[in-house]
């Protein structure tokens, strides 16, 4: 097995608020191998974005890592000083967000902002920086890159802005690209272009991608491996091939069944009753048990661990094997 690029081990994160400290991520463990695309999927408030921010050490003043380790290329990110972190961010780890408009400076041209990245991380200035900036814009599929380099962010469409963000994130050929809802603000025909670009970059540069999204369709087409997050915990970790055909956690299975598809007329949708609880109100025992049609007495009291099911997957459900044996969809009918 190849060396791990990123190892997240028992990572916990808490935020300080008016009513004390609230844990928002509990003991998350996962790894990413070089060139691998790992998807994190979950609903809003599940803690999926917090994982990305914690890895980048961008939790802000109110947030803190309260436990665990993050090792990137063998180094513990938690032990790095601000200067080392700044060189790590951008140079070794790139990041793109949902809304490029808020990440780009509105009063500077995109070419200037690209050259700024090249100067800071690679020491490229002048004509060399200008040339490289144009190359990068062209690499991410921007037609007429010389003209576009002179454009301000608001003069570009959402799809083009996201391409610029990817060009900036890829300027230093990072080993890891963290993409948090990169296509959520885009129309579907443009989303397809951006996803294809990310796939192409993984293929040509070998950059691993941590792709965070609420969209199961995007994850299915992009990820090699998928982490499903619910109420601050990873509840399932599986290769994409098995996760979507035979989910091993009731939450994953219900979430998939609740998505109406344009491929056929769906009848009544199975419903996950209730809503995702806020971090201060996570239930005891299994955090999904109040909404779970399979919950039994131990689910209400004992917090389940991740259970290894076979070489490819883990599930945080004590009834995972039963769930896998039940292929007839009785779970969805119960709900």
């Amino acid at each position, binding site marked *: 097995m190849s060396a791990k690029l990123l190892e997240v081990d028992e990572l916990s994160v808490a935020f300080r608020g008016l009513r004390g400290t609230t844990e928002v991520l509990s003991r998350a463990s996962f790894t990413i191998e070089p060139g691998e695309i790992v998807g994190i999927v979950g*609903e*809003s408030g599940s803690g999926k974005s917090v994982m990305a921010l914690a890895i980048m050490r961008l939790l802000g003043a109110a947030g803190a890592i309260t436990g665990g380790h993050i090792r990137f290329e063998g180094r513990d990110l938690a032990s790095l000083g601000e200067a080392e972190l700044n060189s790590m961010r951008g140079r070794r780890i790139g990041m793109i967000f949902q809304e490029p408009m808020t990440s780009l400076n509105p009063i500077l041209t995109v070419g200037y902002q690209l050259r700024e990245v090249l100067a800071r991380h690679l020491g490229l200035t002048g004509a060399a920086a200008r040339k490289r900036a144009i190359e990068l814009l062209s690499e991410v599929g921007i037609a007429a890159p010389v003209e576009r380099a002179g454009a301000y962010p608001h003069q570009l*469409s959402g*799809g*083009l802005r996201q391409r610029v963000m990817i060009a900036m994130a890829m300027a230093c050929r990072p080993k890891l690209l963290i993409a948090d809802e990169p296509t959520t603000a885009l*129309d*579907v*025909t*443009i*989303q*397809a*272009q951006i*996803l*294809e670009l990310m*796939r192409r970059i993984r293929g040509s540069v070998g950059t691993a991608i941590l792709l965070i999204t*609420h*969209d*199961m*369709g*995007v*994850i*299915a*087409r*992009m990820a090699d491996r998928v982490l499903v997050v619910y109420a601050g915990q990873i509840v399932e970790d599986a290769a*994409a*091939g098995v996760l*979507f055909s035979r989910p091993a956690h009731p939450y994953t299975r*219900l*979430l*998939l069944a*609740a*998505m*109406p*598809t*344009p*491929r*056929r*007329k*769906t009848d*009544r*949708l*199975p*419903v*996950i009753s209730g*809503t*995702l609880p806020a971090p201060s109100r996570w239930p005891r025992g299994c955090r999904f048990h109040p909404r779970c049609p399979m919950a039994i007495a131990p689910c209400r009291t004992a917090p389940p661990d991740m259970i290894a099911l076979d070489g490819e997957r883990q599930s945080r459900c004590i009834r995972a094997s039963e769930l896998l044996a039940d292929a007839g969809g009785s779970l969805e009918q119960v709900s």
Partner: protein
Amino acid sequence: MSEPLLTAERLTRDFRVDRERGPSRRLRAVEDVSFALFPGETLGVVGESGCGKSTLARMILRLIEPSVGAVHFLGQDITHLPEQKLRPLRRDLQAVFQDPISSLNPRMRVGDIIEEPLVNLGVRRAARRERLAELLDVVGLPGDAAGRYPHAFSGGQRQRIAIARALAARPKLIVCDEATSSLDVSVQAQILNLLSDLQQRFAVSLLFISHNLGVVRHLAHRVAVMYLGRLVEIAPEAELFEHPHHPYTAALLAAALEPVPGALPPPLPGEVPSPIEPPSGCHFHPRCPSAQARCRDEAPQLRPLPGSAALVRCHFPG
């Protein structure tokens, strides 16, 4: 077939776009859109951002007036009806919008929000209270919700409040503009089930506007597809999704990703053009895989496609 509840006739809406330098420009947000909506029917409207679907909704709701064309509702021409004469019709014409946070008054209790349309109709207090209890039950909110404020509720519950308010006056038509788009999948399923239950129970018509094809197929009986202000295809749900005739409809369907691992569909080339400078001829021709010279020069009309139930705006329908 019964008389349509609503007809849109050649609706067109222009906006003026001011520029820092130079004369202001005209943006044609909706162009020549016609359709009919029948009692108890759900018509889905799909398209990407900027296709004019929300402007269409605002014209139907008479929040704005069309530049050209007419809207008939319950047999009356409401296109330029003054607000005073429009008011009695408003009870039959309700709306649910995308963001239940900005569409519910944060300073009003939920009970007052839901009752407001009834107050405007002069319904007495006792009858309102009775109807409120009924509505809370219908949309699945607890009885004590009435005394609380919107911020105390989750996004899905707020959308239930918006739906209860829309239902209060027993309308004939509810326009839903991206009504489930800000909701998570599990909550979206709850709201979709609620909408189909309500439709069956009260025979209300829905104009359901969304960019989500799965959601539209789930609810709609017929579906209209818009691109850059024009309606490019309208057909019964099964026909539109099984046999799309317009190349744009086919491209939209191909780009909708199912939660099934596999290769990415080949992306449609190019950007959605600016509605300020739409392409000549067929608006879709620069991105269309089957475009020919004629598509650049001549705008196709929306026409019935022989041997099908679809109307298609394409010179070379598939």
